[in-house]
């Protein structure tokens, strides 16, 4: 592996580059047609960045995120994760990577049916032999408490609201302490208050040094991240750094208190 390893490159502030895409294309063959979901995307994301990805529906955001999450491989182009080309990895190596380094929140949650919240969150740790059953349970409970579901541990996925399921999915992505957190519309189903609570959580994780990539439709959320990438039609249209990051905690405090509390 080491021969493929890129010289680790650093940005102006000396942060390591964790993700590098070079002209990544992803085509889908649908019948006789070829859908170009990604038409050559290149960018670098450095350790500790909080990136929001925006774009219209069908612009390729989920496809891009699947690439970043090592769930899918590019049709052409290169993806280096921590300097290692993902293309050259075996399936099982990518699986281990997903298990240890990446937390992924799916657009449609993807929870195990008829399974309790805590068991859903434990799932990634089931595939990590370093965790004992006890540690696993404790980590899952901590993650659920972090998303404000400490009182819903034993609720089954079909007994929860959409927002609760989404928070379980976030907890599952957090439970393995990932270096890179990928979220696809992670706040799409939450009310304003809860989405700000989630944003506070994401900013806290960001402050702890985690790299976060957050797909959203909501332009407001971009203000709370450090960088914003706009996709259109499978290409990057805009990639800007945010100099004035707003604090989600302040915004949350400024929200009117709910009447019934």
């Amino acid at each position, binding site marked *: 592996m080491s021969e493929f390893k890129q010289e680790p490159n650093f940005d102006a502030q000396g942060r390591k580059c964790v993700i590098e895409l070079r002209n990544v294309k992803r085509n889908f063959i649908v019948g006789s047609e070829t859908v170009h979901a990604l038409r050559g995307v290149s960018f670098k994301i450095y350790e500790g960045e909080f990136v929001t990805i925006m774009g219209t529906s069908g612009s390729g955001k989920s496809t891009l995120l*699947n690439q970043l*999450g090592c*769930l*899918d491989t590019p049709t052409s182009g290169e993806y280096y994760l921590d300097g290692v080309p993902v293309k050259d990895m075996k*399936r*099982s190596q990518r*699986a*281990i990577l*997903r*298990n*240890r380094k990446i937390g*992924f929140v*799916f657009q449609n949650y*993807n929870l*195990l*049916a*008829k399974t309790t919240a805590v068991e859903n969150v434990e*799932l*990634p740790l*089931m*595939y*990590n*032999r370093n965790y004992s*059953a006890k540690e696993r349970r404790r980590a899952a409970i901590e993650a659920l408490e972090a998303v404000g579901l400490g009182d819903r541990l034993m609720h089954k996925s079909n007994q929860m609201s959409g927002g609760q399921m989404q928070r379980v999915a976030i907890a*599952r992505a957090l439970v*393995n302490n990932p270096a890179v957190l990928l979220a696809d519309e992670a706040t799409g189903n939450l009310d304003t208050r809860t989405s700000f609570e989630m944003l506070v959580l994401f900013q806290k994780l960001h402050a702890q040094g985690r790299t976060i990539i957050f797909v959203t439709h909501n332009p407001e959320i971009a203000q709370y991240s450090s960088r914003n990438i706009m996709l259109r039609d499978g290409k990057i249209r805009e990639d800007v750094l945010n100099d004035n990051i707003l604090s989600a905690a302040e915004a949350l405090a400024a929200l009117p208190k709910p009447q019934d509390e």
Partner: protein
Amino acid sequence: MSFTNLLRVAITAILSNKSRTLLSTLGIIIGVAAVIVMMAIGQGSKENVRSELSKMGTNLLTIRPGSDMRGGVRQDPSTQQTLKMDDYVSIREKAHLITHVSPEVTSSGQVIYGSNNTTSSMYGESPEYMEIKLWKIEDGECFTDEDVKKSAKVCVVGKTVVEELFGDKNYDCIGKTVRFKSIPFRIVGVLKSKGYNSWGMDQDNVMIAPYTTVMKRLSAQTYFSSIQMSAISEELSDEAIEQVTAILRENHKIKEGQEDDFSVRSQQEIMETMSSTMDTITLILVVAAAFSLLVAGIGIMNIMLVSVTERTREIGLRMSVGARGRDISRQFLIESIMISLSGGIIGVGLGYLASWTASAIGLPCSVPLWAVILSFGVCAFIGLLFGYIPARKAARMDPIEAIRYE
């Protein structure tokens, strides 16, 4: 994934679809139960034959005319006339490892008393026969050596004969004269009942008379069909066989290197031949049952394939959070092994129940422990074998495609 986690996941999956699991195990259940019952019957009847034969006396030796099978094709012993009076006398005099000897001539035919008749077997023997075959006299007494000397037309009869001829098995028939193949025989004793033996023969349908009488008056022959003897003890059976063989070879003037024109066999050897025959029959039945297990395995494979397709999204999800192909394939393998093993457990239980019922109604049945262990082993193997293809199918799925599967 660790083994305990795999087990937990498999158990959850199995329990979440109980009725289907039960249906898919049905084949295994029936197959295993059949194997267990077959083996139980095989083992049971073997044990039964063994105890039956040992009741006849484990030190029993039999001389038959004609050479043993080892010397090539064996001729029908009844047509050979090598066992003569002379042999009997020599054995009595010289073979000190033999305690009792009785020459045997048999004849079967109709026996008549008044207007009643039945078919029975007449054994021509010496009085020592009672000792050799452990027969007991219930009424009257056995004929004597004197009767043998005089070729007296007397006999002892079994309970079945009494019942058939006199209408009541407890009828006092001592002194009555019956006709066997139109020769009159006076009944001097009634044998204590032995009942049926394990291959369904009525041991009480016999008549025993002095061998001289049967030879002279019934079959007009000068040779014996066999000679029955008992050795001093079971342990000395082999030596007794050697002794008798030596005496007969001398009598028959058989030279060194030449084959015997008779064979001496112990009860033990007969037992072994019999149990090996039974083993063969059992084996054939078990092989037939094993084929049904194979078919059951295909049923499990079918169900597992359906289950893999149904759970495509779950598989995709597990993969997306870090399950490797081998974690997924192990999960499904363990599931199919558990389905097949639980079928095996229920099958063994049912087999036990069936054997127990069978032995309650009098069939000899005994479930051998190794059959149970073997059944579990075979079930685990079937689960592994037929779970392999579905497990591989699951392991090869693409996480994104699987997770989008509708």
